[in-house]
């Protein structure tokens, strides 16, 4: 456990030394807040709160897909990675450290969205709901963490960057993150329940306001979890087998 914290600390240090990495995952959601949420939904407390929850989900997704997808793929290319495997520790502390660091980056990348929501919109949230939302962030990080890890372990870093960029926008748009609950374009409403972003954002909406998540979205989120866990596990073992067998 001590060792996991050590790994997390140095991974965070590595990330923070290149601040643009954190800035990147915080930028899109913050910009979307400023350009879409503030002018169009900012005056309506309920709409602004839901829209903020959507942007938080967006941010969680992009932070996880990028920090794991690109981060893991890059680490795999460095000879430092095999060196750490000669130290007297199994893969668990490094892995746990990576997840802790990823979660920390995720929370950091949310700060701009929350600050914009609190200062420039009418979005309101009770302290209890805020705490619940913080926990929900950790919960909905899980599928996107697994997605990032799958990308990172399966692909070389140049391909990982491209794939991360390719998946994150369709997931955000298709899952209805860019529109208020129930008011997305028709085809988005049709496909959204089948995307992991939908179940995730519905959980966020439920955390911050009166919203009943659709059963189909939650079931599909569970299906995605299982699929992504299997894919991530496969990619990890394949990588181990290739580099360390």
């Amino acid at each position, binding site marked *: 456990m001590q060792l996991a914290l050590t790994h997390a600390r140095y991974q965070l240090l590595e990330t923070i030394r290149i601040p643009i990495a954190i800035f990147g995952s915080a930028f899109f959601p913050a910009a979307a807040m400023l350009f879409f949420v503030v002018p169009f939904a900012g005056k309506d407390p309920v709409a602004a709160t839901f829209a903020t929850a959507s942007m938080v989900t967006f941010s969680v997704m992009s932070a996880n897909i990028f920090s794991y997808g690109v981060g893991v793929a890059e680490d795999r290319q460095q000879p430092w990675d*095999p*060196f750490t*495997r000669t*130290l*007297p*520790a199994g893969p668990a502390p490094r892995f746990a450290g990576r997840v802790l660091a990823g979660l920390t980056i995720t929370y950091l990348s949310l700060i701009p969205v929350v600050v914009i929501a609190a200062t420039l919109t009418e979005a309101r949230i009770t302290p209890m709901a805020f705490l619940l939302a913080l926990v929900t962030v950790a919960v909905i990080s899980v599928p996107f963490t697994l997605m990032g890890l799958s990308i990172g372990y399966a692909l070389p870093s140049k391909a990982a960057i491209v794939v991360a960029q390719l998946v994150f926008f369709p997931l955000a748009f298709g899952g209805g993150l860019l529109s208020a609950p129930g008011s997305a374009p028709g085809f988005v409403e049709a496909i959204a329940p089948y995307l992991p972003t939908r179940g995730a954002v519905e959980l966020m909406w439920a955390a911050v306001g009166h919203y009943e998540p659709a059963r189909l979205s939650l079931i599909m989120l569970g299906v995605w979890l299982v699929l992504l866990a299997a894919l991530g596990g496969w990619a990890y073992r394949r990588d181990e087998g290739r580099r360390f067998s």
Partner: protein
Amino acid sequence: MTLARADRVSRRYGDVLALDQVDLEVRAGELVGLLGPNGAGKSTLINLLVGLRRPTSGRVELFGGDPRDPASRRQIGVTPQETGLPGTLRVGEVVDFVSAHYPDPIPRNELLDQFGLSELARRQTGGLSGGQKRRLAVALAFVGRPRLVVLDEPTTGLDVEARHTLWEAIRAFHADGGTVLLSSHYLEEVEALAQRVVVIGQGRVLADDSVDAVRAVVGVRRVSLTADGLPSLPGVVRTEQVDGRTHLLTADADQLVRDLVTSGVEFRDLEVRPTSLEEAFLAITTADAQPAAAA
């Protein structure tokens, strides 16, 4: 006591047989040099011994256990062939990070001092020169007060002075009772440090002997000449006929030339050249195995 052992170990990468039935034992207190040309299988053997890879067949042991079990690696320190340090971390941070894995690490300043890195403690590793990175990578092998250090070509890319600083550190560690396994393709380096040399070529152990014995073998020279029929000459370890030229391998080229002259045989175009490590070992081992196969 045996600290590291390979027992009839083979390792295959696809179609390539990188190691072929290799036996090796490193006993406590030894300073063993693994000598061989690039691609001979030295790094593969090291990677098996430190648990980075699994053998295709055979057994590897580290302190009596499986090297892939983290507990077996508690008393080793490793410098891999490639220096990959996290570029954004500072030198001191990298040392602290590795220290965190050991119960009783050498204090940071003491370690940096020993390897002449004290001045660089605050620098990010990405900004170090190649030689400085290499010195840090070697220093990291010693952080955990290991009983066995495994160094894969530790001085590659270092200038003469840095190389000697490193040799001093390795000797001091050995003088304190530490055990060292180091690979190199420089005979000079192995001569300077090791007592025992294991020569590896084409995935096999070609020789496992004292430095002196190996030096005698590697000191083989090639005497080439054109002649019609030679008498049998003393001291020739191997004879080759290529395109009308006769090549004689011998440990004492001076004496061979004297013998040639006194034998009165007609010869032309005399040439004496040193053999490369690889050439010397392969010539001698294949000669031993199949004396009639001279090409």
